[in-house]
């Protein structure tokens, strides 16, 4: 357990050291959401309609961008090797790394999303659901993403291959997450979508660290 906390602490420390990393994932989120109006045009009604989709796709891409750096640096400099050789079970250490990843990329997105929602003129209730959905959805993105990151580790052209693997797996999260917000925007209840998200999250919490660890062991061989 001590080693797990050490891992989380170290990853947060590294994120602070590379100050820009956390901030820039956030800004990527902001910029991508702002790109869409530029591509699509400034009509407020149209923009409001596609806002949940855009915000979710942007959150998803922002999470995904940092994924390739989840294990790659540790792999390149031999830290992963040392983690595999540590007396603490590798699965636990990996769970720690995934937690740190969510804390540094997912959580900031959740906190920032309402501000961007305002740019698209969403009302208070929709903003609330947006935050709630992201709060359930972004850990899911980190967990699923970790599997992809582990599978593409040390593989040629890993970074882009990663997105190819991970994006299809993100589809359910996207549909339920954006769906929840759209329900509220059109005056319906979002409860169904949210509970589905929660269920997915519960499954992933148990399954993803295990799959990630297995994939990492293969990469290390």
């Amino acid at each position, binding site marked *: 357990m*001590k080693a797990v906390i*050490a891992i989380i602490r*170290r990853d947060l*420390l*590294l994120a602070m*050291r590379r100050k820009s990393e956390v901030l820039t994932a956030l800004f990527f989120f902001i910029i991508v959401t702002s790109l869409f109006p530029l591509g699509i045009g400034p009509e407020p009604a149209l923009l409001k309609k596609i806002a949940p989709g855009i915000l979710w796709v942007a959150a998803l891409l922002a999470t995904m961008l940092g994924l390739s750096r989840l294990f790659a*640096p540790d792999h390149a400099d*031999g830290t992963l090797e040392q983690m595999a050789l540590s007396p603490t079970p590798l699965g636990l250490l990996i769970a720690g790394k995934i937690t740190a990843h969510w804390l540094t990329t997912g959580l900031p997105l959740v906190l920032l999303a309402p501000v961007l929602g305002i740019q698209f003129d969403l009302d208070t209730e929709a903003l609330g659901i947006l935050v709630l959905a992201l709060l359930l959805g972004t850990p899911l993105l980190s967990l699923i993403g970790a599997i992809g990151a582990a599978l593409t580790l040390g593989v040629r052209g890993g970074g882009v291959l990663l997105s190819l693997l991970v994006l299809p797996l993100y589809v359910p999260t996207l549909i339920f997450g954006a769906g929840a917000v759209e329900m509220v925007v059109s005056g319906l209840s979002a409860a169904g979508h949210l509970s589905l998200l929660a269920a997915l999250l519960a499954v992933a919490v148990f399954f993803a660290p295990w799959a990630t660890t297995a994939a990492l062991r293969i990469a290390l061989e």
Partner: protein
Amino acid sequence: MLTATALSCVRGERLLFAGLDLALKPGEWLHVQGENGAGKTSLLRILAGLSPPAAGEVRWQGEPIRTLAEEYRRHLLFLGHHGAVKEELTPLENLSFAAELDGAALSEAEALAALSRFGLRGREDLAVRFLSAGQKRRVLLARLAVRKATLWILDEPFTALDVKAVELLSNLIVEHVRGGGICILTSHQSIPLPNGKVLKI
């Protein structure tokens, strides 16, 4: 007590070695020798349990290391070609992180002492990225000094080190072996250490 029986290793379609036997008792050390590409690194990774052998088995205290898993790793320290040092962190942070990963307690004073023993005095708070090639390796060596493992597996530990550091490391290994430890290492230079075994691949 580390034993390996009938190990063989295949890379691509190339057989690097086959039927390799090996037994090391506490207080012994082994120098693995061979030309470039002979398979020394491959052997060391097999012994550390990082990659499986094509045939044969590695045992620790009579048990196969596959089944021992964490129990084996608790006794093991492996230094590969890559340093496992984070370029962004300082030597001090790297060292204490490594200790925490190993589940060992390391006070700041101990860490500082180890670093300054390896000539990193004044560089404790400089990101590793700025260190010279040899200084980077010295950070790794400081880890050797603080980690209490029985079995050391070191792949070319002498690279990039200057004369003084080579001597420091040699002393460290001698100490370790005298204290009942086991050490396996590779090096293309001759090693100024007494009575080791030699394995030629």
